[in-house]
């Protein structure tokens, strides 16, 4: 199967999932408690205003009509309006996207190289002290609750030693130094578990690869071990990692809610949390939908990258 056909097939496969996600979020939206009219107009809305609002948003329509409306509006890129912020959800999300993207991008940037280096180290010293140590570090990394890690970092780094500011956010474009200072702890929190997971994957994948016949052949030819590690086995061992990198998006998006909440970062995770607390459900659903789409795109891209590098994947 050619790459073009594979791309097409994966795209077609995503459509029902996307449709399912939209439907599920629609159901969730209607299941959320709270009266949007009251959230918008206060607890004692005048009847006229309430009626006007209900009519405007079509709340009086049967559910299937609302569903069709919802789909039509989504197709036009309209995610509805926030009742608390009094502005379209899409523009609200756009404002808050920067911090989250920065946070997640940096997290990948920190986690990936560290994880690969540690994973290769562990595999190269398989079953020796260094490997056991890296393994324990990896297990500890995935076992550490990020909210606890965040609090302890704040206490030790920001309060006890006063090395960094405790919380807040400044855009890197405005004030790069202050921004970097503020981002160290959130990124460390987010990247720890991510790094640990990637490291474990790299390690086990490398160990498997180092057992392959072609590695034996390379060694028999007298190729230096370093070269065998980095030029021969690592390239193949990194393939399965591509998939994990895509899947981790989901994990990071969950983490962004916690990290942004604790470090007072005005990103989408925090927006989600704040909106859910006050039941501003169009924002809640807008962000959920956006996260799901982001995840699907991430997985699609990593799958395509995998299929591009390893053509065997295209035939299944």
């Amino acid at each position, binding site marked *: 199967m050619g790459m073009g056909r594979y791309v097409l097939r994966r795209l077609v496969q995503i459509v029902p999932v996307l449709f399912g996600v939209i439907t599920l979020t629609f159901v969730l939206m209607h299941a959320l408690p709270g009266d949007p009219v009251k959230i918008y107009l206060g607890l004692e809305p005048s009847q006229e205003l309430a009626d006007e609002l209900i009519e405007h948003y079509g709340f009086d329509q049967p559910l299937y009509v609302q569903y069709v409306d919802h789909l039509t509006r989504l197709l036009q890129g309209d995610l509805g309006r926030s009742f608390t912020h009094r502005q379209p959800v899409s523009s609200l999300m756009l404002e808050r996207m920067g911090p989250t993207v920065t946070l997640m991008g940096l997290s990948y940037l920190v986690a990936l190289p560290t994880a690969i280096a540690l994973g290769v180290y562990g595999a190269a010293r398989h079953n020796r002290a260094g490997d056991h140590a890296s393994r324990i570090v990896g297990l*500890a990394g995935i076992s550490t609750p990020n909210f606890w890690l965040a609090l302890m970092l704040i206490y030790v780094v920001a309060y006890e030693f006063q090395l960094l500011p405790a919380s807040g956010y400044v855009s890197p474009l405005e004030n790069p130094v202050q921004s970097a200072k503020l981002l160290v702890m959130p990124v460390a929190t987010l990247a720890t578990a991510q790094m640990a997971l990637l490291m474990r994957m790299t390690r086990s994948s490398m160990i498997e690869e180092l057992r392959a016949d072609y590695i034996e052949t390379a060694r028999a030819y007298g190729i230096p071990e370093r070269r065998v590690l980095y030029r021969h086995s690592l390239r193949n061992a990194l393939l399965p990692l591509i998939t994990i990198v895509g899947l981790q998006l989901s994990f990071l998006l969950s983490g962004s809610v916690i990290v942004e909440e604790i470090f007072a970062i005005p990103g989408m995770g925090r927006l989600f949390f704040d909106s859910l607390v006050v039941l501003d459900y169009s924002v809640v659903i807008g962000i959920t939908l956006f996260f799901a789409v982001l995840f699907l795109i991430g997985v699609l891209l990593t799958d395509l990258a995998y299929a591009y590098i390893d053509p065997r994947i295209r035939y299944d």
Partner: protein
Amino acid sequence: MSSEQGRIADTSFETESTVVVTLKKLKYSPTSLVGLFLIGALVVMAVFSTIDNFLLDRAVITWLHADPHAMNQPNRYAAPSMDHPMGTDQYGRDILVRIIYGSRTALTIGIVAVGISFVGGVVIGGVSAYFGGYVDDALMRAIEVLYAIPGLILAMIFMAIFGPSLYNLFLAYGIVGIPAYARVMRSEALSIRDRQYVEAAKLAGLPRRTILFREIVPNGIAPVVVQATLSMGSVIIGAAALSFLGFGVQPPTPDWGRMLSDGRTALLIAWWVAFFPGMMIFITVMGFNMLGDGLRDIMDPKTTVESVETDDIELEALRADEPPGETDAFDDAHDGSPTRADGSGAGTADEQGGDRS
């Protein structure tokens, strides 16, 4: 005639249970043994606090140390000391005894939520693989929909809809976990579907339900068990995260996530309120991960890698071709069990203790 054959097909393969074989190999894995020990300690704590709470009205714990519900306002935020090894919280309650009582909540959430995901995942994954075609397509797309929404996000919305309570927490994480189990079960079942004993069972005229749940599922369950052990940790962390954010367990139930959230407000004046519950979550999750890690290493390491759309055809072909008897040779070659040949087994536990502090 057919019923007799059915009975033969039913009984003659029961000894081949991979679960039993795996459990026997556990003793070669120091990591899993440490994990098992940590979990054992947790279970003891949880059972003790359950009996003490419901049958003895907290008499034993009060006699031993302190009443987890007793408030003592003048003694609020007392630093760790001989009287209160882990200090006291904002109501002057002893943190140590509350942590012991909290083990019950953590373990219950873990077991019930994982149980829901396990059963749901096994049924969906098994049915999906065995029936194939449209059933498979429909179920897998549904699973992907569930998987596309980040776990914590889905769980938070669920809790907002149904209200924060322990039971809803079970359900929320139970549902969130189903996709992972369904995928593992499905890929296992796919490789087992065409084995000879399944063919034999079909020829013997066994009903499809029996073939699926008596032949296929038991033979493919081992990797799902590993998945369960490994996800136990993430469920406990996830539930604690929900409680931390205020969407989970409500007071006065002692819960580690909730205690952490209390500790957050007093972080700068009383670090211990947040430190110890978090430490406890860490140790518990570490225990489950160590056990799961060891279990996975004992078996094929690739089976629990969350495989996405791209089901590894090669791997599946390999597994399908592999007669049950040969798995031992494979395991011996693999990295998990070789601790047998490795004297430094006990060192792993020491290193872990050192690394943590």
